[in-house]
């Protein structure tokens, strides 16, 4: 053990892993330690007395710290960081070269790159990088750069982490992948590249880009990895935001049925967003303007060309609606497109909106509105007609039944009004606004009349044989009025109160639309010699008039027991109104 200050200094001097040279004021080497001798590849004796410029690219005054390029053989060249310590007032300087800061020398050896300048630390600072030298055998990692700024660790703390500390600082979600990438690159002798989240001293994480190259010995065993770790958190964040923003745009385009496009008026090429490609049915290939312009239906071509021309030449707003035949499946799509012209770039930028469903809704709405208008007019017309019918019935009663009691007239009129009202009730209950089932209506009407006469008991038997078919209201109402007169006649004269009998009704429609209505009762029948054509009662006049005039039909009165009548008419007298 050295026991004097001089010896202590000497032992420390020689044992130091850093290369130390003692320079006089003329920058000649007057002493050096073992590490320096080893680094420079020359004996201590050979180097003492040599000017510094002989062993490095150093020119002029030496700074407090910096980098030196050292030639250590025919091929090897080291760039090492150094610091200087003035030695008392003798003018001597102690030059301490950090041997482990040697980075480029090894890179040069392995990849043949030759660095012309030395501002590594400046570059590290400017680019936010840390450089490292990982001793694979010992697991130690020597870091260089603004360690504290980037990681929050002091240089000492950080350099003491080693490989296990480094692994520990990797985000748990990224750790296994990153370690695997490192090991694979060492094993396969490839450049190591990994991006991962690294934990700062305060526990927060930031994204880094980590790249390294492995140095192997002559037997191919890995010795060291030289690399850099760069803070890419802002870039990653921006990239993530960009990805998110693009995803939002794609989603918005999908939900909204929109897309955007650019016409490059110089290259004649088209940029189409994912949404635009989807709407137009364009594949991934590059499209020309001419190709895309084939998608709109031909009848819109002239209008679209003119709109584009006036946008570019006259700055007129481009706001058009047209139909396209989608290129993938030939579907016809309604498009709304707006565009702006950028004269600086000579591009037209536009947005398209698939308005097929809103167009369809608009059409449905218009159609519904039209139907409602027609319905309202029809309702008005029917109401007016029914009022007219009621007024006419009352007027005819006044003319033809002067001897009738008022109560009798009122009851007859109410029955006729009920016959009309029942049609409207049936109409309201049906899905159709225009048709009701005629047989169903007649059946209900007969029962209603029986109730009106208080004859809905077992004495009147009903024998119905009626086909089921729909009929327009304009047929149903006159049929109802006829039925009202026929049943009323039966209940008043054929089978009066206290008598029993049967009312039979047959209703059918032939394929050619001929409707046949047969009515009969087994009651008293008309008096002998009764002339159906000349009878002036309102009931018979109503039946004849409606059948022959309104329905343009035929009426035949039968003979034999009871009362029999057969009516035939076509169901196309009235067209369906609604």
């Amino acid at each position, binding site marked *: 053990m050295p026991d004097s200050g001089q010896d202590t200094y000497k032992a420390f001097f020689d044992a130091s892993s850093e290369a130390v040279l003692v320079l006089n004021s003329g920058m000649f080497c007057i002493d050096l330690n073992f590490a320096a001798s080893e680094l420079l590849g020359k004996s201590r004796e050979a180097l003492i007395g040599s000017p510094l410029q002989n062993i490095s690219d150093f020119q002029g005054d030496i700074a407090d710290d910096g980098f030196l390029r050292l030639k250590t053989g025919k091929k090897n060249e080291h760039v090492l960081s150094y610091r200087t310590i003035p030695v008392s007032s003798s003018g001597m300087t102690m030059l301490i070269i950090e041997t482990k800061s040697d980075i480029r020398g090894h890179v040069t050896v392995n990849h043949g790159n030759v660095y012309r300048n030395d501002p590594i630390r400046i570059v590290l600072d400017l680019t936010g990088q840390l450089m490292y030298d990982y001793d694979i055998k010992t697991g130690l990692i020597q870091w260089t750069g603004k360690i504290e700024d980037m990681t929050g660790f002091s240089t000492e703390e950080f350099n003491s982490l080693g490989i296990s500390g480094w692994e520990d600082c990797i985000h748990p979600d990224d750790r296994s992948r990153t370690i695997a990438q490192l090991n694979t690159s060492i094993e396969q002798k490839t450049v190591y590249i990994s991006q991962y989240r690294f934990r700062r001293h305060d526990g927060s994480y930031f994204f880094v880009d980590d790249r390294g190259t492995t140095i192997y010995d002559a037997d191919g065993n890995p010795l060291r990895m030289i690399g850099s770790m760069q803070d890419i958190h802002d870039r990653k964040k921006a990239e993530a935001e960009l990805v998110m923003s693009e995803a939002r745009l794609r989603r918005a385009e999908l939900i909204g049925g929109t897309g955007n496009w650019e016409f490059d008026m110089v290259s004649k090429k088209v940029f189409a967003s994912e949404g635009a490609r989807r709407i137009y049915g364009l594949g991934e290939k590059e499209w020309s303007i001419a190709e895309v312009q084939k998608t709109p239906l031909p009848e819109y071509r002239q209008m679209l060309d003119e709109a584009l021309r006036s946008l570019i030449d006259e700055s007129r707003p481009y706001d058009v609606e047209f139909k396209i035949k989608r290129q993938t499946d030939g579907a016809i799509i309604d498009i709304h497109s707006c565009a702006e012209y950028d004269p600086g770039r000579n591009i037209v930028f536009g947005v398209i909106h698939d308005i097929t469903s809103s167009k369809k809704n608009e059409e449905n709405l218009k159609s519904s509105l039209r139907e409602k208008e027609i319905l309202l007019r029809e309702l008005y*017309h029917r109401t007016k*007609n029914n009022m007219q019918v009621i*007024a006419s019935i009352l007027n005819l009663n006044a*003319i033809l039944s002067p001897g009738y009691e008022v109560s009798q007239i009122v009851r007859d009129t109410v029955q006729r009004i009920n016959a009309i009202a029942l049609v409207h009730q049936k109409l309201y209950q049906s899905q159709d606004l225009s048709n009701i089932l005629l047989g169903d209506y007649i059946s209900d009407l007969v029962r209603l009349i029986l109730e009106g006469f208080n004859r809905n008991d077992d004495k009147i038997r009903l024998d119905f044989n009626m086909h089921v078919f729909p009929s327009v209201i304009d047929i149903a109402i006159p049929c109802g009025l006829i039925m009202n007169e026929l049943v009323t006649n039966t209940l008043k004269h054929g089978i009066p109160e206290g008598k029993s009998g049967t009312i039979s009704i047959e209703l059918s429609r032939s394929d050619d639309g001929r409707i046949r209505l047969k009515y009969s009762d087994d009651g008293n029948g008309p008096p002998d010699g009764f002339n159906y054509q000349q009878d002036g009662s309102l009931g018979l006049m*109503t039946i004849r008039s409606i059948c022959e005039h309104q329905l343009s039909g035929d009426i035949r009165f039968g003979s034999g027991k009871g009362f029999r009548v057969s009516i035939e008419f076509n169901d196309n007298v*009235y067209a369906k109104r609604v």
Partner: protein
Amino acid sequence: MEKQIKLMLVEDEAMTALYIKMMLEKRGYLVSIFSTGEKAVDSAKAEPPDLIIMDIHLAGEIDGIEAARRIIEDAYIPVIFATGYQEKTYVDSDKSIKPLAYVTKPIDINKIISIITDYFKKKCN
């Protein structure tokens, strides 16, 4: 003997037609009724009436306006239209018809009789 005035009543609602016909016949007019425009046109071409009372909504393919237009394209015959308020505008849109008058439904028979009487009085004078 004075020639009986022939009226054509085009009305597809039987009870109304029956009532108007009876009331006009009481006043001495000869009334023929038709429920469709087609039948009315055919009859009027064969034997023109002196005046027509025309409903607008009719059974058949053509409405009262079209029937009137076809009838008067050969020779003018005065037409009284039985209309609703909105239908008056519809009739007026066809400038070729020039109706004698409009009556609204439910029809006031006295008003019709008054229009007819006035018309023929003026015509005689």
